[in-house]
């Protein structure tokens, strides 16, 4: 037992010691936290874009003269790990603002068990589940929850609109078997059926399989005129290749998650001529083009992964709200988001001059209308954004916009669906 006791003490000391290492203070820094899946291939660019926004903000002088330090933690897409990281950021680093997470299954427990009880503002770039709208409308988020990713409702309506415009009458659906995919698959099916389009098959695609032949064959049986895919690049490419090689139609409508070079290269551009995608972000505004310019300047590549402009806007809006807030507490920052995204305010694009002007205006107690990578952002009472939409297709350099739907057009179409 004696040696056992020593081990017990030793192990405790080592574990505790790991916690004691970092304790370096810097003068006048403002911390914000980020919990994002950085160990996942598509998660890292999202974090990189948020960090880029922080750098731009610091060049413009930081928040109230203090340098912003973004403390980034990986979620490993494991809810336990994500919640723990969020709790550590809130309790140990005292961040008043948390960016993240990506998966709704991680964002939700963070929201209910960390940020709301601790009164910290949470802004997600990418969680699209309709469950958040339900929580917020019950008043359980205390106004601390925001997301810059249009809800699945918005995305599914645009998908239906594209299908309607192309006159497809018989459309099969493939959706990713997660919360987002199930949500959007169900909504698109309902929208199409309400417009009189037949949906002979709606098939779940579970990640990480080596082949989707049985799923593809099942959809082929019904000989659909076109297919709709809400999938991620890796499994999306597999499904598309098997679909086309088995003689399926090349008339495809795809979600913004497939807007990636990885998908285009792995399927082959020659098969994607009749493919059209929808995206709730990247509207045809100066600010969206401005974001693409800024991004290209920094990373020497097109911002073609999912969620990049959303991540940029989430970080920027959070920092501008901190600038506008009377104090550094989560609730007052959350309440100041409205000052930053006021449609009646001065339009601001977040480059060096824009940020400088924004700070002057906010300092003088005026409101601004933030115009970022996803266009002019406006949150509703549940922290959701509606967004204008674009249709895009693949080309040699990546993707190209083919059509633009303004916010009003999208909203009008959604209400026509609901009636």
């Amino acid at each position, binding site marked *: 037992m004696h040696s056992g006791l020593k081990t*017990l003490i030793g192990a405790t000391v080592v574990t505790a010691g*790991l916690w004691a290492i*970092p304790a370096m203070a810097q003068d006048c820094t403002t911390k914000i936290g980020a919990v994002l899946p950085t160990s996942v291939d598509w998660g890292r660019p999202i974090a990189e874009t948020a*960090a880029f926004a922080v750098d731009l903000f610091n060049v413009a002088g930081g928040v109230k003269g203090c340098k912003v330090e973004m403390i980034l933690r990986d979620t490993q897409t494991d809810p336990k790990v994500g919640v723990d990281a969020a709790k*550590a950021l809130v309790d140990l680093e005292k961040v008043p603002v948390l960016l993240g997470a990506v998966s709704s*299954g991680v964002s939700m427990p963070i929201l209910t068990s960390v940020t709301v009880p601790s009164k910290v503002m949470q802004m997600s770039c990418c969680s699209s589940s309709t469950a958040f709208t339900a929580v917020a409308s019950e008043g359980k988020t205390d106004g601390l929850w925001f997301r810059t990713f249009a809800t699945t409702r918005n995305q599914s309506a645009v998908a239906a609109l594209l299908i309607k415009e192309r006159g497809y009458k018989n459309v099969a659906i493939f959706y990713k078997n*997660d919360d987002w995919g*199930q949500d959007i698959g169900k909504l698109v099916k309902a929208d199409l059926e309400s417009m009189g389009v037949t949906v002979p098959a709606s098939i779940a695609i*579970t990640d990480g399989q080596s082949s989707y032949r049985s799923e593809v064959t099942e959809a082929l049986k019904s000989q659909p005129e076109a297919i709709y895919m809400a999938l991620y690049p890796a499994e999306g490419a597999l499904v598309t290749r098997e679909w086309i090689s088995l003689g399926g139609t090349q008339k495809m409508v795809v979600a913004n998650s497939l807007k990636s070079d990885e998908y285009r290269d792995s399927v082959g551009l020659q098969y994607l001529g009749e493919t059209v995608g929808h995206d709730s972000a990247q509207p045809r505004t100066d600010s969206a083009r401005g974001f693409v310019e800024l991004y290209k300047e920094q990373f020497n590549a097109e911002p073609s992964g999912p969620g990049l402009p959303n991540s940029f806007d989430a970080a920027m809006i959070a920092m501008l709200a901190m600038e506008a807030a009377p104090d550094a507490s989560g609730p007052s920052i959350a309440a100041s988001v409205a000052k930053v995204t006021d449609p009646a305010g001065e339009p601001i694009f977040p480059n060096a001059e824009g940020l400088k002007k924004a700070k002057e205006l906010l300092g003088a107690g005026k409101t601004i209308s933030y115009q970022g990578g996803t266009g002019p952002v406006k949150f509703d009472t549940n922290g959701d954004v509606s967004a204008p939409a674009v249709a895009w297709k693949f080309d040699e350099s990546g993707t190209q916009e083919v059509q633009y739907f303004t916010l009003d057009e999208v909203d009008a179409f959604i209400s026509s669906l609901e009636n």
Partner: protein
Amino acid sequence: MIGFVSYLVFFLTITAILAIAVLGLNLQWGNAGIFNGGVVAFFGTGAYIMIILGGPERGGEFGGFGLPWPLALAGGAAAAGLLAILVGLATTRLRHDYLAIATFGIAIAIEAFVRNATYLTGGAKGIRGFERPLEALIDNPFLYSLFFLALAVVLLIIVYAGLSRLVSSPYGRLLRAIREDETAARSLGKNPARVRLEAFVIGAVIMGLAGGLYATFYAFISPQDLAPILTFQIWAMLIVGGAGNNLGAMLGTFVVWGCWVASGYVLSSLAPQELQLYAGTLQYILIGLIIVVTLLIRPRGLLPERLQVTKRPGPQNTGVISNAGEQYQS
């Protein structure tokens, strides 16, 4: 300071909940030698059934029984036990690696089931839970977190005390006898198949209890919580702590989960700016390294299984026991 205490309380709560599951596995593997590769199936069943039994009504979905929390928790644990009976009967002829693969497959099946059976489980979006027990009464997040920690620790102590009694009783000796040599145990008139099933079910009930507590604490459960990584984490905790030693199982939970999350904290604080984006990947390497190094230094775990010797007078007997002991050590 209050922030540190608040985080510590949170960390210890999760550790206590996971430790309960590790104790369940320790009964199965550490004592009875049952290689359960599907810990998450029992953990998840406990969590889901608890939330379905205790939760409020969900629009158009099954559930909404609104049972009192202790009943819901017990129901979850019982459901995990029921699943274990079915799995145990189906796999009764399987041993070691075959059993591991079979149980692993069952865990994958359960995950796929909850992801797709939207009517029952809410599908991929998961199920939101209910107000945690007595939360409205205490009405202070920090005091409530202390209360919940106390609750988890009390349950952990009850499980620990119960299991310690069980494994030091003649029944525990029987479990170890079957683990070491099933044929020999059978030759003494014991029924290994039945005893193995019993140990498997008791262990699963304990894992289900841990799952129920987990879902109570987060007031949320989704298929993402049922990823196979949890099975790996629970196993790593047991192996690092010392299979066969209940105290070791709990210490292992503390050390492995502590290193798991502390590595993320250390990397995010120390890594230079340009490496921050890769910290998540480095964290995996660090976690693996800590587990490997611990096992290199202490191959039988931090607190190895202690030899239980029934002392009897007489020189001859002592000799036999010490021989058995040597074999035990190898």
